[in-house]
């Protein structure tokens, strides 16, 4: 959903964005969890938080072009520097990356959560064992008048 206030992201910015996402949520070592780099963050933001796009463009400009080509450990150090220099901006970015990541159906399935909205599918949970309440009752009245 492009509009007049949506900045146009360059290819270089998009590469940096993917690398930034991948740094914040890398793939798991056992390969069971994908990295956030494969999530289309711009599509998510365009529909769910378009007001954040301009701030994101500013964040991406804090990183140089080679950022996307660095090894994970090197990117982590650069992102850590950003997190320490501007904690609110970093937290906002992480919030958006996490939100997009944990909405993804593949990710939700992998963590054992229902894909999509909770309603109307809902969840089933066991009633639970109430048998030990007999012992609680035996202790007798516990209130005062």
């Amino acid at each position, binding site marked *: 959903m492009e509009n007049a206030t949506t900045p146009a992201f360059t290819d270089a910015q998009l590469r940096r964005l993917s690398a930034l996402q991948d*740094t*914040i*949520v*890398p793939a*798991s070592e056992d390969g*069971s*969890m994908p990295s956030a780099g494969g999530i289309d963050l711009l599509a998510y933001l365009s529909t*769910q*938080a378009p007001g954040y796009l301009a701030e994101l463009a500013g964040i991406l400009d804090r990183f140089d072009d080679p950022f996307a080509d660095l090894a*994970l450990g090197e990117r*982590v150090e650069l*992102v850590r520097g950003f*997190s320490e220099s501007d904690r609110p901006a970093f*937290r906002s970015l*992480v*919030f958006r990356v*996490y*939100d997009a990541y*944990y*909405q993804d159906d593949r*990710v*939700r399935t992998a*963590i*054992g*959560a229902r894909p*999509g*909205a*909770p*309603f*109307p*599918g*809902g*969840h*089933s*949970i*066991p*009633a*639970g*064992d*109430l048998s*030990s*309440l007999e*012992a*609680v*009752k035996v*202790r*007798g*009245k*516990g*209130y*005062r*008048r």
Partner: protein
Amino acid sequence: MADKGASPSNDPVDVLIIGAGASGAAIAWSLTETRMRILCLEQGDWMSSSHYPTTRNNWEAQQFGAHHVDPNVRALDVDYPVNGTDSPIDVLNFNAVGGSTIAYAAHFPRLHPSDFRVKTLDGVADDWPVTYDDLEPYFVQNDRIMGVSGLPGDPMYPPKQLPLPPIPIGLVGETVARGFDRLGWHWWPSDSAILSQPYEGRDKCLNLNPCMTGCSQGAKGSVDITYWPEALRAGVELRTRCRVREVTVNDDGMADGVVYYDADGRECFQKAEVVIMACNGVGTPRILLNSKSKQFPDGLANRSGLVGKNLMFHPVAVATGVFEERLDTHKGPQGCCILSKEFYETDLERGFVRGYNMQVTRGAAGPLATAMKGLAGGTIPWGPGHHEQFDRYFDHTVQCLAVCEDLPEECNQVTLDPELKDSSGIPAPKVTYRLSENSRKMLAHGLERGKEVMRAAGAVEIIETPLLRVGGWHLLGTARMGADPERSVVNGWGRSHDVKNLFIVDGSIFVTAGGVNPTSTIQALALYIGDKIKANLANLFDD
């Protein structure tokens, strides 16, 4: 003083209720049998269950924005800001038809019999002018209308029947109950205003989890879907997006109506024979303090000087247990599971008077909340190691809240902020609050007992929250009941000592706070006051 002549006119009404939340809805419904013309003004809108967050993929993110429980974070145009800089606990609320029942957990215990007699039993604060037994029939009536699920037989209460069997306690409840059993402590399934079975045209709970962003299923008893449909059918008028600025008085010192801003921001005057405040323990004193006149220079109904004073929260400490086994904590009503009243009644050997409820809840909702809480708490990093730590906590954490009884102190209060205003220019409330020594000791005790039960249940790690800042749900005591006009704002049935046609029915009138969530008692009290009004209709304003 408002210029009553300059505003658009509205036909006079017999009863004007300010606020369409838990208590306003209950008393509106109660008074319908009088056939009086009843009008309710509500600053918020009707909510639509089809638009609640759980119908959307981004349901979790909305908890941090438009559906946040803190009005200062939410900052919708129907909200008013609250200056809470002088309080360690943030005021929480929701402004809509249904009020904070839209966003509450629906944990629905009644106050205990001893809560109404704290002076007699424990020598602190004051007894209430009503007893548990006075309210008992209204608890029953309210449970029926709200649709309350629970298990009879709890030895911590007088015998009571509930309309529906308990909601499932699930793996979370079973696991923590084992801890209580090992310690020999009381526990019981929570009374919940959540349907465990289809009931009166509403379907049962789907275990969606985040009850506090509104129930898409309609299984949670919020008053927009319980009391209000019946009240509207019976002829009550409800006007939304009407923000009351002040209650006005005539030359005789009687309330004669209110000045409010309508949906278009126009200043209006609504004349009324009786005015009923139902705006919660912060909203009600805010309006009364803003209703200054020649007769009431310190605010309406405030000759005692107690309007806004004696603010009570329920300070909350949290022990979060981390378990090796997966407990499916993102499934099931978040705030309703099991509880313990082991430390509810006074035992001075503990070092404090009165006590607390231990409320077991089902974790930090979904994955986003888990990850963000982990980030804030330093337990789940971003970057390498994220997944391993996320797996350790998601669906593996259970919270045990110590919901502590706060005692009334005049220094804890709501006043009008001299600078901060809402979008209509009405002064915002300022909250000045400090924890008493008794509350501090109780919190510390509750935290330790919470850790103890988590360990007994098998937790391998415990995260401590000594005081929950985002915990000011229960706003109580700021226009207290009592027989003595020097020491209370309203009498034993909610009528102002100073203004005989002004009533208050929300949590403001609590004399003490008890140690449980107050909505059930707030509504029972509103129904009780409704019956008193009906019984005294012929001489309602007499001394």
